[in-house]
């Protein structure tokens, strides 16, 4: 990069006051740096970097739509990235490995001088694509990458004409009924359009057990299991008088109970 031209930067943060604060601090810390653009989210930041080709991008980590880490991944190698964050111990740990710098909000002029010095040294070289760091960061922030499987914690169901979000911990059982599946809690019943089969894919198998082709029960809601006159296992629930039959293929579940 030619040294004859003044270095340029863009700032991305969803809060205007934060952008102003950083711009003012940068004015003191690095007077010759020209702030050529400001963005309010990751998408805008990418567009700005692509059209203005600045030397440095100051990216806030938490932004709506697309966050700073995702934007940096998209811009890998196109610009030197400095992350800005209010408080994030994971991010700080990652940055300590030295690939790029980070700035804590509110940005202090003294600290920014060090950042600027680091960036100035780097501007001579091509930007580091930071692949490893970004992958690690985005995983820590809960973005893309290998994540443990997430199960349903809330079920969206209709109660009369309302749509309610029911925490799975309140559900006693699900039962297939015609086109719908009935969701029963201790207080009310609700309907969902998902089939038992679809539900089983999304529910935590530790939390819910299928006990019949059309019945899924929450394990913690089971009060006791008895046998009826026909010799079949019947599940009694806490908080409901309804009894649920266990079909033969699922009787092994209650062997230990």
């Amino acid at each position: 990069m030619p040294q004859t031209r003044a270095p340029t930067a863009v700032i991305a943060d969803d809060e205007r006051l934060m952008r102003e604060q950083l711009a003012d601090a940068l004015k003191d810390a690095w007077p010759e740096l020209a702030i050529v653009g400001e963005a309010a989210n990751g998408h805008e930041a990418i567009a700005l970097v692509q059209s203005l080709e600045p030397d440095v991008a100051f990216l806030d980590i938490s932004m709506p739509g697309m966050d700073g880490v995702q934007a940096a991944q998209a811009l890998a190698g196109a610009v030197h990235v400095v992350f800005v964050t209010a408080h994030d111990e994971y991010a700080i740990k990652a940055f300590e490995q030295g690939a790029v710098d980070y700035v804590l909000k509110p940005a202090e002029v003294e600290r920014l001088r060090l950042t600027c010095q680091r960036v100035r040294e780097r501007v001579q070289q091509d930007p580091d694509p930071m692949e490893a760091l970004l992958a690690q960061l985005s995983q820590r922030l809960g973005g893309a990458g290998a994540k443990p499987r997430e199960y349903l914690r809330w079920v969206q169901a209709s109660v009369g004409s309302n749509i309610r979000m029911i925490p799975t911990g309140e559900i006693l059982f699900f039962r297939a009924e015609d086109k719908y599946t009935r969701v029963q809690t201790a207080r009310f019943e609700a309907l969902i359009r998902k089939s038992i089969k679809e539900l089983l894919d999304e529910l935590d198998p530790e939390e819910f057990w299928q006990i019949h082709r059309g019945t899924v029960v929450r394990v913690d809601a089971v009060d006791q299991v008895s046998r009826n006159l026909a010799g079949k296992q019947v599940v009694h629930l806490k908080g409901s008088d309804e009894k649920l039959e266990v079909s033969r293929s699922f009787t092994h579940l209650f062997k230990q109970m």
Partner: protein
Amino acid sequence: MTEPTSSAQKGALRELRDAVIVVWWRFFDWLAVVSWTKLLLVSGLGFILAGILQHPIPWLMFVVASVIIKIIAGGKRRAELSADEATQRAHTEQLQRTVVEARMEALQAQIEPHFLFNTLASIDQLIRTDPPRASKMQQSLIRYLRSAMPQMREGRRPTLGQQVGLCTAFLEIMAVRMEDRLQVVINVPEGLKSAVFPSMMLQTLVENAIKHGLEPKTEGGRVEIRAEVVDGQLAVHVLDTGLGFAPKGEGGVGLANVRERLAALYGERAELVISVPPAGGTCATIQVPYETVPAAT
């Protein structure tokens, strides 16, 4: 020489007197709580026995005396006994409730570091560019922080007015930071502000609306606090036009806390309902029995 004997006699006498007193009060307690039929039955049996022993008159006098004692003192004694028991039970329950409540409040009162640092950074910027606004924002922050410190919340029962005030402080801060990405509507009738409403619950709902609904939404949106009384229940809604509820993920610790605290405070008489308005976003509603705090003296 007679000294030790007499003191031993005195000791034995005292023991005998104590034993008689204990037996008497046992008998008195039994008499107080025993049912009339049982008393009649025992008297009849005793009478037969006394007849066999040829001494029915003293027994008859004893029975009459018992009946009189039961009539005069029984009711009072019985009431005392059941009151004692009830007090003890209520005390234990109250204690349990207080402990649960204190623990959960402490959990709930944790201030998000992100929120704190971002707000301080905004104030720092406003001090340079707009000092009056900085001062206003700082005052909002102080009001909000005060609410989040459990030891500052002692004393009288919290009212809806106080809770809405604290949420307003939080929303004022967020409105300065998010600018036109956040519109705030407070729709709480003046008359409902003296209603009893548990602390730190509305805050959780409002913070959720911002953090999970509106902050992650590029164009932002609106948050509304609305209160009404329906069938003797006070319903307080927090509506947002944000991203909507994510059914997966481990979030919802705050909501689970609200739910547990409601159950500890009101049992079946209170409820937290999360629903999805037809236009999208999220509506969280807390329903508690409607009661007002007597005017401060």
